């Protein structure tokens, strides 16, 4: 387009372009730093457990396993078959929950949106409780808890979508619908827990607190990884459209985006990814809520960097939580969900204080 004052000062424009590129470089460096941190922490986390294995020894054991020259089958089993899947599960879970929180907050325009506030976690909890207390599906498949948790986790998302289809609901109404469904599921879950056999309650409670230890084998990893990787790729493909949606529904429509459809697609996506993760690990809170907010402070709200940044920080933070939980530093091991709540709660309060009167 030709505008009347086209006489731009080239040096000012050059400075602007340089600064823009430098900002992008900083964002990419932040994400790379998190990925490197996660890789280093993964190695350290693999050394921790009932038997101490040296930092470099873990690499040697993994390398020997890859080339098929296993010298110590016990160490090989411990590292490759037990500790490594747990580390992978922590990374995948962190990535999955964090990108879901990031996407939900963006499309629902609400800084509190995450798998908890949209009812996904409550649905999953109900599904798991149903299997653990009544044996529903348990006779048919060993994955009964996972399947039931996944199916019921999708119920709140379905309700939100139906509501938005029939009543043209706003993002706020969608969150409120999620909260409504959450209370209904919580009531049923509590009722079933009251009737449950005390023997089942421990398992049930452990599931509800959430732990990566429940995924300490390779058997579950492909399902979790598949859902999370596909979800992450789709979110990255949608990132430009999500940026347009962030400028408001009216602006988005005028720029050619079907805002309502994009919101629904995003909700289905977050439902599938978060349900695909929590149905294996149980309910782990705060990752989806806190990580995207921290990443926004460093890379801004451009989804092109925010989504991968949230994925990287989610992986790092959950790995930190799981490493602390299993380290036994305080004399006993703690469930990942509990550690995450101890970390996430204060961090969230700090974020609120830091933001005080500003918008997010």
């Amino acid at each position, binding site marked *: *387009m*030709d*505008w*009347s*004052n*086209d006489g*731009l000062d080239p040096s*000012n*424009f050059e400075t*602007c*372009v340089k*600064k*823009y590129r430098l*900002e992008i470089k900083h964002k990419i460096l932040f994400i790379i730093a998190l990925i490197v941190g996660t890789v280093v922490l993964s190695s350290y986390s693999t050394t921790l457990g009932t038997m101490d294995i040296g930092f470099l020894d873990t690499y040697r054991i993994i390398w020997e396993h890859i080339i098929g020259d296993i010298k110590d089958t016990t160490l090989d089993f411990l590292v490759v078959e037990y500790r490594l899947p747990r580390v992978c599960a922590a990374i995948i879970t962190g990535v999955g929950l964090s990108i879901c929180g990031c996407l939900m*907050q*963006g499309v629902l*325009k*609400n*800084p509190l949106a995450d798998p908890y506030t949209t009812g996904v976690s409550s649905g999953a909890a109900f599904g798991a409780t149903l299997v653990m207390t009544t044996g529903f599906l348990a006779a048919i498949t060993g994955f009964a808890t996972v399947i039931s948790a996944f199916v019921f986790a999708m119920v709140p998302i379905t309700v939100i979508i139906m509501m938005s289809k029939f009543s043209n609901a706003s993002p706020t109404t969608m969150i409120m619908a999620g909260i409504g469904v959450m209370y209904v599921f919580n009531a049923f879950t509590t009722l079933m827990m009251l009737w449950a056999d005390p023997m089942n309650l421990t398992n049930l409670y452990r599931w509800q607190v959430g732990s990566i230890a429940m995924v300490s084998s390779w058997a579950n990893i492909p399902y979790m990884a598949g859902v999370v990787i596909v979800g992450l790729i789709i979110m990255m493909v949608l990132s*430009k459209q999500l*940026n*347009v949606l*962030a*400028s*408001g*529904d*009216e*602006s988005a*429509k*005028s*720029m*050619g*985006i*079907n805002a309502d459809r994009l919101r629904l697609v995003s909700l289905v996506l977050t439902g599938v990814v978060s349900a695909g993760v929590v149905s294996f690990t149980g309910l782990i809170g705060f990752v989806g809520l806190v990580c995207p907010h921290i990443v*926004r402070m460093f890379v*801004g*709200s*451009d989804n092109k960097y925010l989504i991968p940044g949230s994925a990287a920080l989610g992986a790092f933070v959950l790995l930190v939580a799981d490493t602390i939980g299993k380290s036994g530093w305080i004399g006993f091991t703690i469930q990942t969900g509990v550690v995450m709540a101890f970390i996430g709660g204060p961090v969230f309060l700090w974020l609120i204080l830091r933001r005080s009167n*500003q*918008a*997010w």
Partner: protein
Amino acid sequence: MTKIELSHVSFAYNPEEPVLKDISMTFEEPGLYCILGPNGVGKSTVVKCICKINEHTEGDIFIDGQNTKELRYKDIAKVVSFVPATSNEMFSMSVIDTIMIGRYNKRKWGQEEEDLRQVYKAMNLLHIENLAYHKSNQLSAGQHQKVSLARGLVQEPKVLILDEPTANLDVKYQVYVTELLRAIAKQNQMIIIMISHDLNITAKYADRIIMMARPGVVYTVGTPEEVITSENIEHVYGIKSTIIKDPNVGVPVVILGESLMDNE
């Protein structure tokens, strides 16, 4: 040349209280079109119907002969861009990234520098290049409005629609932005439609004025001389006025009198 035609368009949230009633008008000649009218007469609604942000309940809207009911948002966005009166971003981006969003339909792989050039030009034009890396939640309402306007400009549409683009600006920038819009319309043979509440700025810069009145109807359409009359102002706004001619440019100037509401 782009043509927008509204034919017997009505819109209602509730069938008993129509917001727009049987609106018919055509935008064909390039230039600055201003929509005037009191609050609640459907000015924003009618422009949102053109962009399909609101879907009209009766009648038809044609963009270059194609009915908008059969067009996708993407197709409409290639021709028309809309700058809303307010933005409701929950998470703030930097000003440069916010304006860059406007290039969504134009962006091509490896052409980032051209996008940045357009963005920088728009910032330069609106004197906000010093705010490029400020977050949008650090801006004043007026600065925010300039950013929205810049985002609308970088879309390079054939038809640019603006909902009260000068509402939060100081007098200097109200005049500057309106002058700018008129110049852009002339230079690029574009149709620019803006909603305004300032009768004098509209009278000075608009090529054509659409005056709307209750209950959601077009009261009159024409040049500033034809529309800005004391009779029309009294009928539409309920206010007495005296119209004189600007001795320099010959456009009508409104001297507002008493509100008739006070006399009732």
